[in-house]
């Protein structure tokens, strides 16, 4: 009985970590679907989001909810500017130029955050820190539960946005066919920048939700590498796939840490990633059928 409870605990922790991976992966997928770029700095944008919230809540003394909302908006604006100023210039260059460009941007963000906020881990008081809830004998940290609930809520909002608003549908259209979207009068460039803004905002949400579980520090962006595994597992073109992939990776990682010898937990996500790419490159939830020549 105790084992089952322990297992369930692991699964919930894993799912919470997985939601974070899923949220970062969601950012990858949104950008990839629209512009065919992969933003290797996504994890670092999450880090920036976390630090923005930290600065607003701790230094400016704002309420948690107000501070978090402002931080998300700030990060989204940052994402918009990033596309409009930097990334739009590299359209037409080889794809790995974009990879290297975003990697370089990641280094710069990390250094900028380190200079501004220091290299030590920081945290801020949230309504979920160090509280637990008791679900029929199962004791869960509110921080973990808040991550899962927050992710589900955010996905609901995004789903409604993409399926029911004019702008959301315009975004889908530009992702599917740029040229046709232009002909329909959609300002594709602005829409792409807005997609970058959304994915940066989602990353900020991930950073803020993650802050009560693990502190905010400059190197938290390396979580982005695990989020690749989530995105690839989900097929890299599918939004629900990315989230599910994230949850799967999170749970598998926790279980591997529990059942396998030390050292395996760190490589699990990478092993899953390579295995997926080799065995089923289109991912578990492929949306894009075979390539046309």
């Amino acid at each position: 009985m105790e084992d089952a409870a322990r297992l369930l605990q692991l699964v919930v922790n894993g799912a919470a970590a997985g939601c974070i991976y899923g949220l970062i992966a969601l950012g990858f997928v949104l950008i990839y679907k629209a512009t065919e770029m992969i933003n290797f700095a996504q994890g670092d944008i999450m880090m920036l989001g976390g630090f923005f919230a930290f600065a607003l809540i701790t230094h400016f003394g704002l309420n948690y909810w107000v501070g978090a909302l402002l931080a998300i908006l700030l990060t989204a604006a940052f994402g918009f500017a990033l596309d409009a100023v930097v990334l739009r210039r590299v359209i037409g260059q080889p794809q790995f130029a974009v990879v290297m460009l975003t990697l370089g941007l990641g280094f710069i963000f990390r250094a900028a955050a380190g200079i501004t906020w220091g290299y030590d881990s920081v945290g801020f008081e949230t309504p979920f820190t160090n509280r637990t809830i008791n679900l029929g004998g199962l004791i869960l940290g509110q921080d973990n539960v808040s991550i899962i609930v927050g992710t589900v809520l955010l996905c609901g909002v995004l789903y409604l946005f993409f399926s029911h608003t004019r702008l959301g549908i315009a975004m889908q259209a530009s992702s599917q066919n740029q040229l046709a979207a232009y002909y329909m009068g959609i300002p594709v460039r602005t829409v792409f920048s807005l997609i970058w803004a959304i994915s940066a905002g989602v990353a900020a949400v991930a950073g803020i939700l993650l802050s009560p579980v693990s502190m905010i520090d400059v190197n938290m962006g390396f979580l982005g590498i695990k989020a690749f595994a989530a995105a690839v597992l989900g097929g890299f073109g599918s939004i629900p796939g990315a989230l599910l992939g994230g949850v799967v990776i999170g749970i598998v990682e926790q279980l591997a840490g529990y059942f396998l010898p030390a050292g395996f937990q760190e490589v699990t996500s990478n092993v899953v990633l390579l295995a997926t790419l080799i065995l089923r490159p289109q991912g578990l939830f492929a949306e894009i059928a075979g390539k046309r020549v």
Partner: protein
Amino acid sequence: MRYLFKTDYRQDTSLWRHRGDLFWYGLLGIVLLVIPFVLGEFYVGELGGVFVFAVAGVGMMLLAGYTGLISLGNAAFLGIGAYTDAILLSHGVPLLIALPVAGLFTGLFGIAIGLPTLRMSGLYLAIATLAFGSIVGTVFQKWEAITGGFDGFAVPAPDIFGVPIQNATGIYYLSLAVLVIVLWFSANILRTPLGRAMVAIRDSEISAQSMGIHLARYKTFAFALSAFITGLAGALFAHYVRFLAPDAFDVLLSVQFVTIVFVGGLGSLHGVVLGALFVRLLPQFIAIVRDDLPFGIGRMPGLEPSLYGLVLVIVILFEPGGIYGRWIKIKRWFQAYPFKRRTSFRRQKSYARSERLR
């Protein structure tokens, strides 16, 4: 300005464009041979490091610059080469055997990672090699029976025919020799049908395939070649640092290799050497000017990686040809003076190439 009149088909594939090339490379060679007698131990050591990174850069250039495949896991190849060489030496194998064996063994890993990644294109490949590199890095840390884990691995001092190679000068000449051989070897490969096939794959996979190029074979070959050369560099690296720590071979090192290739100039062997000079000498330069910088910028931690990042971003945005590309432009400006026009180097209008419709 020199005009090249081609009177023979062999001129198209010759190693030297004209006699002037031969003269300048000869001069450079003599200067490089004399340097250890002129400069101090410290600078000779640093230059040795530049050569080691240039060898690794050639491996990266053949893959990224000439075949168009990106790898973010080349640090793993470097690590495999380094540990293979160190372990062989500690079992008493002479350097002249251990060095190529380290390269060949790493080449096998290159094939192993090349085969499954054939079906992946651009971005997936970057992610897959990133994962591969990070797995190998963890293996170095955890497999203590072989690598010594975080205790490190002391590399025995090698010797060639009884001549010990232990000080900076020895490493300098050894890496210079390997670099020259590797450059010559790569330049030759690039002149063969094999090299032409690699370039064709880079420019367009579809047209390469329709010209009868076996994509899978040549891509695997490119990976194996890149891993082989990086493995050689790894063996040299082991002697250069003399003490292997498993966390040296992380993603940042892979990013440094790609930086070499991008900053030097994609698709040129000259660029590799220039890029390696840049990447290795930047930290030294920072160390020298550290105290003179205003506002205490020089004392900030994390300055180096951010500078690498900044340079990478600037190069990709403003000079995709890298240092070598800029050098060509400057040279043309002088050669054609005063006929340089604003459109002389204007790039064609370019469009995003979609991977979905390939």
